[in-house]
């Protein structure tokens, strides 16, 4: 069994983003008297930053366990995706830069009763991703084109090649 957490070093930037976002949107809301349109826009953005801060806090308390039985998310929003219940696996890549570099990946495991979303900032993400993909390939779960390209970038070419030979 392997145990994965988000290192505090990876969460600090997210906490900072939430804090800065709240300051720059909430500050004018509290200190000035904005027009209704600006008020709604700033309030909506402040709410998003607050939710992001809460999400980061939840991540800090979350632990991902991977075992022979499946993947378990322990923490405030705990859920589980056993291997036999795995229905879909996607890997998405996001970057805020125009050249699409210095981004991060998101691995989503969908099960019959819930789904688990893991960012590449988690400890041993490669290990987690390779095992999940292996299980997906073994169980004949289809991987979309985007996921396959991203897996190749992760160095999981073998899994992709195995899948590419599968019919359909």
């Amino acid at each position: 069994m392997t145990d994965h957490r988000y290192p505090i070093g990876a969460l600090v930037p997210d906490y900072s983003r939430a804090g800065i976002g709240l300051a720059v949107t909430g500050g004018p809301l509290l200190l000035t008297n904005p027009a209704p349109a600006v008020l709604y826009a700033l309030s909506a953005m402040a709410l998003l930053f607050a939710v992001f801060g809460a999400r980061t806090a939840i991540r800090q308390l979350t632990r991902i366990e991977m075992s022979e039985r499946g993947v378990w998310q322990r923490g405030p929003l705990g859920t589980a995706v056993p291997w036999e219940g795995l229905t879909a696996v996607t890997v998405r890549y996001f970057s805020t830069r125009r050249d699409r570099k210095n981004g991060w990946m998101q691995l989503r495991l969908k099960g019959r009763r819930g789904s688990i979303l893991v960012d590449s900032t988690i400890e041993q993400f490669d290990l987690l991703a390779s095992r999940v993909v292996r299980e997906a390939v073994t169980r004949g779960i289809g991987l979309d084109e985007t996921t396959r390209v991203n897996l190749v970038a992760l160095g999981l070419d073998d899994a992709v090649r195995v899948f590419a030979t599968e019919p359909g």
Partner: protein
Amino acid sequence: MFAYLIRRMLIMIPTLAVISLITFVIIKLPPGDYLSNQLVELQSQGESAAMEKIQFLRDLHGLDDPLLQQYAVWVGLWPDPGGSFNGLLQGELGYSFEYGRPASEIVGDRLLLSFLVAFCTIVFTWLVSFPIGVYSATHQYSWGDHSLTFIGFLGLATPNFLFALVLLYLANVVFGTSVGGLMDPEYIDKPWTLDKIGSVFEHIWIPVIVIGTSGTAGLIRRLRANLLDELQKQYVVTGRAKGLPPFRLLTKYPLRMALNPFISDIGNLLPQVVSGAAIVSVVLSLPTTGPMLLQALRSQDQYLAGSFLMFLAFLTVVGMFLSDVALSALDPRIRLGGRSLR
């Protein structure tokens, strides 16, 4: 995706702040301002009463305050000399010295109409270029491909103002539409009614076609080239060999991948459309922001010009934000070679 949205939003906010600062500094850079120019003119005429009024206005609007303080007052982060917040954040566009009234009163419906023209132009550009681009790629080197490409280049090569004059003539002679403007004269400065909206849509097609045609050629060429690239890839050949119906083969992946330039162009199109519309607006007498911005810049009417420039910057930044979010949702792939994930 949520994290992406937050990160992208955090880039958008300081971008707007920096743009507003740069806009303000640039407007203040030329020596003097509208009031000091007026002052010199009045001094030469020996009018002392008006000079007192100008000094009163300088004090009222804090034109002798430090630059940063003036900027903060303009944005709405610092109280004005009267002690209240009256800046962009509060929906106040500032005071127009040239017209002697608050800028929001002068601008009226111009911002809304500019946005409407820009929005309709982008929709028109997409509606025209999308089917033509797809047709040109799927019927490469056919008569249809050559003809449509020719028409596209014609749109690109014809100056907007010339095209505007031709369409004005045609609209007047063939369709009997009143020449110029975005509505019939009886609706100008009147409250919005269904008849007024109808009149706007009766007139808007001319500027939309004039401004939109120049953007279609580029999009057609890019969509055609991207789709041709995709259609020659191995997975398309395999799909064709396996007997996949042509329409499904086209729409399943190649078209989605080729759509990227359409999405990424939202951000680029908006400023192009708005700034490109300035000369067309003069020719067509459109009540949009373009002609007023030109006049405000010429006369150093700083708050009016600054507010218009901020509006353009806001449209651009929001357009970029929307296009980036849409692009990220449409194509969340890594580019091979950029493996840094943390």
